[in-house]
């Protein structure tokens, strides 16, 4: 039996992700300049900008964007599951939702750490992007809670798919929050034809985006396989337990062993 969820493809993906992380660190921490040196100079020659703090951007922006992407995958998986009852789509939605939650949490934490030196506060209630992201995060926690309900799998999957669908509108609102309303977050910066960012910074950010994208794909693949195997174990659970008991009974009868019953897995406690 294969004791790993890795395959040739995921090993390659993992290696690419690790190289990507190293490259991201090189560009994010060494090559890209601090804000204010290359971009903005005040009239009096005094430096303005965020200085070294801007480097948080190389984690904050990619984690937020890939998290949104992950939730769209969850929504798509939920729709496909509801239409076709595809276990594959259900497991993809689950795996992507989990990874999305981790990435969104990272985006919230890095955002707070970035906000304190730049805005003077960890949290600003008047900022629509922040508040909608917080709401989205708790919706995702709710989705993951439904995924863990001790129900029959088919029912749990149907309920999860309906809750997963509801992540869609919130993610859209969250994404467009900076366009629709005025807040502390700046509007679209890199997703426009004339990106409003220094060239090296933009390249470093693109490296970080690609790296987090590959990391997401790599981890989702592994998580998908673990969840798929969990489903198989659940399918086989009762049959395997009964077979184990019968085998133990036969062994004890032939060897004449009398003692405390073995643990369910057959391994002595």
């Amino acid at each position, binding site marked *: 039996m294969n004791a790993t969820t890795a395959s040739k493809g995921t090993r390659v993906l993992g290696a690419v992700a690790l190289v990507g992380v190293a490259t991201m660190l090189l560009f994010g921490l060494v090559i890209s300049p601090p804000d204010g040196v290359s971009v903005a100079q005040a009239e009096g020659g005094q430096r303005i900008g965020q200085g070294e703090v801007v480097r948080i951007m190389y984690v904050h922006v990619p984690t937020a964007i890939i998290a949104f992407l992950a939730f769209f995958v969850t929504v798509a998986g939920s729709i496909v599951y*509801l239409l076709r009852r595809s276990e594959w789509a259900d497991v993809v939605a689950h795996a992507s939702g989990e990874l999305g939650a981790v990435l969104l949490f990272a985006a919230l934490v890095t955002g707070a750490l970035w906000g304190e030196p730049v805005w003077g506060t960890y949290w600003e209630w008047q900022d629509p992007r922040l*508040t909608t992201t917080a*709401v*989205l995060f*708790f*919706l995702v*926690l*709710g989705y993951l*809670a*439904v995924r863990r*309900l*001790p*129900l029959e799998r088919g*029912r749990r999957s*149907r*309920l999860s*798919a*309906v*809750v997963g*669908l*509801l992540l869609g*509108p919130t993610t859209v609102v969250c994404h467009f929050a900076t366009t629709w309303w005025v807040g502390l977050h700046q509007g679209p910066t890199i997703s426009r034809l004339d990106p409003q960012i220094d060239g090296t910074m933009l390249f470093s950010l693109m490296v970080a985006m690609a790296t987090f994208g590959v990391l997401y794909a790599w981890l989702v693949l592994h998580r998908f396989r673990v969840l798929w195997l969990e489903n198989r174990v659940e399918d086989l659970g009762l049959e395997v337990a009964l077979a184990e008991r019968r085998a133990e009974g036969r062994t004890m009868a032939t060897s004449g062993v009398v003692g405390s019953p073995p643990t369910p897995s057959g391994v002595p406690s």
Partner: protein
Amino acid sequence: MWRDAALVAAKDLRIEARTRVALNQLAPFAVLVLLLFAFAFDAERTVLRGATPGLFWVAILLASLLAVQRAFALERPDGLRDAVRLSGLHPGGLFLGKVAAVAVQLFALEALLAVGVVALYDASLSAPLLLVPTCIVGALGLAAVGCTYGGLTGGQRVAETILPLLVLPALAPLLLAATQAFEAAAEDRPGEGWRWLALLVAFAAGYVGLGTATFGILLDDG
């Protein structure tokens, strides 16, 4: 579907009228929340008066959790949930009936709490033409969201504890819009208030549509 909705709503409201759970438990709970806010804010009338719109809607929101749990607990004992599924009622009608029954109870609760905030917080409620529609649509939105998720957790004790986790974040836009509409009414900015009410209508309509479409799946009929 509409006939089924009317049947279910009448059935739920008749049960409420006979058991008086809303009157004996829901209403005292909501008023108690108002009292607790006053304790938490050190009975500072100026603060309470300023925060009245938010406190009013938070109290309604918390009470709506109980109302929704109650609405779906009615069918828990003796396999009634299965009986409802076997009755041949349209799932959308079932959902709309539940929403209507919960919304009526919440609207009555809003009327009670409106008196409560005037008496306890010294709040002045003006612009009834804006406040009353806000309360009606707010109650409808709360009921729609609650029943969408209530259908999910209804009838299963294992799922009951996650109802607040699912419902409260989903209700954040409603809380915001309803509070802002109340504030606009209090500060004599009706134009802004109507815009928030429009958002509230869109939100409620969205959830009524979504719940009607998905309730069959939540009941395992899909």
